[in-house]
């Protein structure tokens, strides 16, 4: 893809992010941070490419290191968000 198409996607995504995040209820701001943390680890895509295609040598190990770090974040981030969200309860009718 050429630079301008990519830039367009980026700019549009910034606007989408702006409106979506303002609609997040303040009570869920901590889960918001945890889940944004998890999804920003989509950087694992780059790490996987490096680990898969870089052949032998330093780049592969650097890539594998990044895979480990990003996986900690992905699994940890989603799991902790899930744990937090499970705690938000409405009044149960007794």
């Amino acid at each position, binding site marked *: 893809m*050429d630079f301008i198409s990519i830039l367009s996607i980026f700019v549009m995504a910034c606007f989408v992010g702006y409106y979506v995040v303002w609609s997040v209820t303040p009570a869920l701001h*901590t889960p918001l941070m945890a889940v944004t943390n998890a*999804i920003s680890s989509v950087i*694992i895509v780059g790490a996987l490419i490096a680990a898969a295609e870089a052949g032998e040598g330093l780049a592969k190990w650097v890539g594998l290191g990044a895979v480990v770090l990003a996986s900690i974040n*992905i699994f940890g981030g989603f799991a*902790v968000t899930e744990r937090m969200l499970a705690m938000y309860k409405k009044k149960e009718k007794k």
Partner: protein
Amino acid sequence: MRFHSLLRSPGPRSGAGLIRDLAKLARLRIKSGLTVVGLAVLASSPAHAATGEGLAVNPWVALAYLVAGVFFILALRGLSSPETSRKGNRYGMVGMAIAVITTLVTHQIANIIEIGVAILIGGMIGVTIARRIAMTAMPELVAGFHSLVGLAAVLVGWAAYLSPAAFGLLDADGGINSVSKIEMALGIAIGAITFSGSVIAFAKLSGRMRGAPILLPARHVINLGTLATILVLTALFAMAAPGATMPLIVGLTVLAFVIGFLLIIPIGGADMPVVVSMLNSYSGWAAAAMGFTLGNTAMIITGALVGASGAILSYIMCRAMNRQFLAVIAGGFGADAGGAGGGEAREQRPYKQGSADDAAFMLKQAEKVIVIPGYGMAVAQAQHALREMTDLLEEQGVEVKFAIHPVAGRMPGHMNVLLAEASVDYDKVFELEDINSEFAQCDVAFIIGANDVVNPAAKSDKSSPIYGMPVFDVDKARQVFFIKRSMGGVGYAGVDNDVFYMDQTMMLLADAKKMVEEINKALDG
């Protein structure tokens, strides 16, 4: 290629159907053969990759990444209410699974076992941390996770630098093209700043490092100088001949680590909510920069979402403290706590001290109680005792509501999570602007571990460092209970609080958890 093993790679059970479909799609294309071979050629051949912006040439692959990006948008969208939030989180997991699986099936994977092991190790560490972490430790956990994203971005940037062919970044002369080099350098720099900044934030939040600002002389000059040097190095790196790039990128990486460290050490504990949000934003921009390098829409969309999210949270936090973002980043707030507070005048003023029994008696008589929790409640782990108190009071027919200031605690939404952990219903928990008018009709304002957020000086005293910050109007309540460890300490802003000395205020000086437990005993008896 062993695609069956891919099915076992990270995927939430709820998204299994979708993943299976995607895998089927992948297998179909493998049967047709051509596509995959074509992709492999594209991936490894510099001639084709010379378009410069990565591998996403196959429209199906690009589409899959786009779908992943849309799932991430839905994940954030789900957080608009607690009812939809868990579904949102699942969308996030599905999006991630799509991104990971798409990457794996579209690349020639020589070492799937090593990759599987890496994911397994990371996944086990991540899940273990997520299960064990105490809810009160959430701010440092988030800071810690940010540091990992930052470091991962640095590593991915370096991997792309060391092995540009794998990412299709080579231009006709066998060097990396300049645009990719700029994106790469920015990704590495932002990632490194995120990493070292988050490590400091983590150390401060977890008490491994003192929360007080550490002020270097001429720090603004040093910081701006370092930032400028990083930009210059980025430009030089982009223009350098293939053989001469190594020292530039090494220097750039090291300086970015240093500046992240320097930027966060002068910022005090009270401003940590802003710092954590800001680092959240940085981790997003780092991911977006790497997305530009790889031409990957999932990374770009996510990066923009996360970047925007962190920026908005920083803005909300600053607004809630009536402070300029730049002033927070410049740091130093709360450094002169001893001097500015006017210590000698403060100690002289009379205040009323009460016991748990007094408090329990008056709470029973009340019709409406508003509880204002703050960081002190988190430190004392008093949320469960507080919930018990709420239950006991409700049995007596007292209406109890919770009022949360946006900057209560050490990160956005910190108090809400703790109350949720203690199973306080979220429809009893209100934000500042929604509940502030109710103090005039409430019998008791019950302040537990909060201080600056109820300080009337923010409304009246122009010389106060917190002047202009929106605060709770507790002075309008008929009765104020103020749980505080001792009269000695002041809030993070280091200012005295007139609420202590009001006629209707009763100070309950004790550890927050012990005090609430004693009140509960008295209420029960």
